[in-house]
């Protein structure tokens, strides 16, 4: 008999989650079995796994936006960010773990875009999990050879006089683009500015947007 997920609790006493209703797949079976074996063997615990899920859930583009907004407001911080983005992020109190981060500054002459052609390396400890398109064959193949065409598909056309720099995240570094502060945003507070800074602008496929 199907469970009614709106008023029924699981055997453990927790409410069912939306995806609990999905037909069990081979790989989901493996995930459950692997996780249970690891707990049984005291390699990890359910609490540790849940804490890691929560830690990853807490990471989102809002974290990166806060870092960029501070760089827009505080020129000394921006210098530190460009010199050592890991240290600057930690200075703001963000736990980025062991991640090695490099900040890339967009200027009037230069636009930066980040890709991982070999897999899907992404500054996840700052921005959260990457979007599906970043991990796709099309983005990984095309961003290094036709970045301007890729950008136009994202709605961004750059003048010929600007130099595009494509950064292929091939090894231990992770990258965040520091977009140029848009004209209409000057004079706003750091908190107000953070709302302008989108995930896509920190990957380099878009520009900051005035909040709706």
């Amino acid at each position, binding site marked *: 008999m199907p469970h009614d997920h709106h008023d029924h609790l699981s055997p453990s006493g927790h409410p069912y989650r939306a995806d609990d209703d999905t037909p069990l797949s081979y790989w989901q079976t493996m995930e459950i079995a692997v996780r249970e074996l690891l707990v049984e063997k005291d390699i990890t615990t359910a609490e540790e796994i849940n804490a890691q899920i929560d830690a990853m859930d807490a990471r989102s583009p809002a974290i990166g936006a806060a870092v960029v907004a501070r760089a827009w407001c505080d020129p000394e911080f921006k210098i530190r960010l460009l010199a050592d983005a890991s240290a600057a992020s930690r200075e703001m109190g963000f736990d980025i773990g062991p991640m*090695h981060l490099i900040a890339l500054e967009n200027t009037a002459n230069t636009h930066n875009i980040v890709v991982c*052609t*070999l897999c899907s390396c992404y500054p996840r400890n700052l921005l959260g999990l990457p979007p599906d398109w970043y991990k796709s064959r099309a983005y990984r193949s095309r961003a*290094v*050879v*036709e*970045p*301007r*065409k890729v950008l136009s598909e994202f709605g961004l056309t750059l003048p*010929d006089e600007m*130099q*595009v*720099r*494509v*950064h*292929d*995240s*091939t*090894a*231990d*570094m992770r990258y965040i683009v520091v977009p140029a502060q848009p004209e209409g945003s000057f004079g706003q507070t750091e908190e107000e500015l953070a709302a302008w800074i989108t995930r896509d602008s920190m990957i380099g496929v878009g520009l900051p947007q005035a909040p709706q």
Partner: protein
Amino acid sequence: MGTPALANEPLAVGTSVRIRTLMPPGHVRAPVYLRGKTGTIERAIAPFKNPEQLAYGLPAKEHMLYRVRFRAGDVWDKNAENPDDMIEAEIYAHWIEKMDQSHAA
């Protein structure tokens, strides 16, 4: 032809380098589209353990990791959208050959 980048002689920023054209199987992090291409050292990052060994759970030596900057025109020839655009990638020292520096821009 260049000489391989030596572990104990970090390459200076601006050094003209070429990525080696080796084609091994296995887990390597020098993308094929950059092999054989000439660029310059953008910075020496730090020594890191060789991922080609770590991938198999084997003991791994540290190699200096560099960021290498390439002109799009030098990588893609006439297929480059804008030959003066740049591609920058992290390459481990053992994939790098130091060029005769008369090639430096």
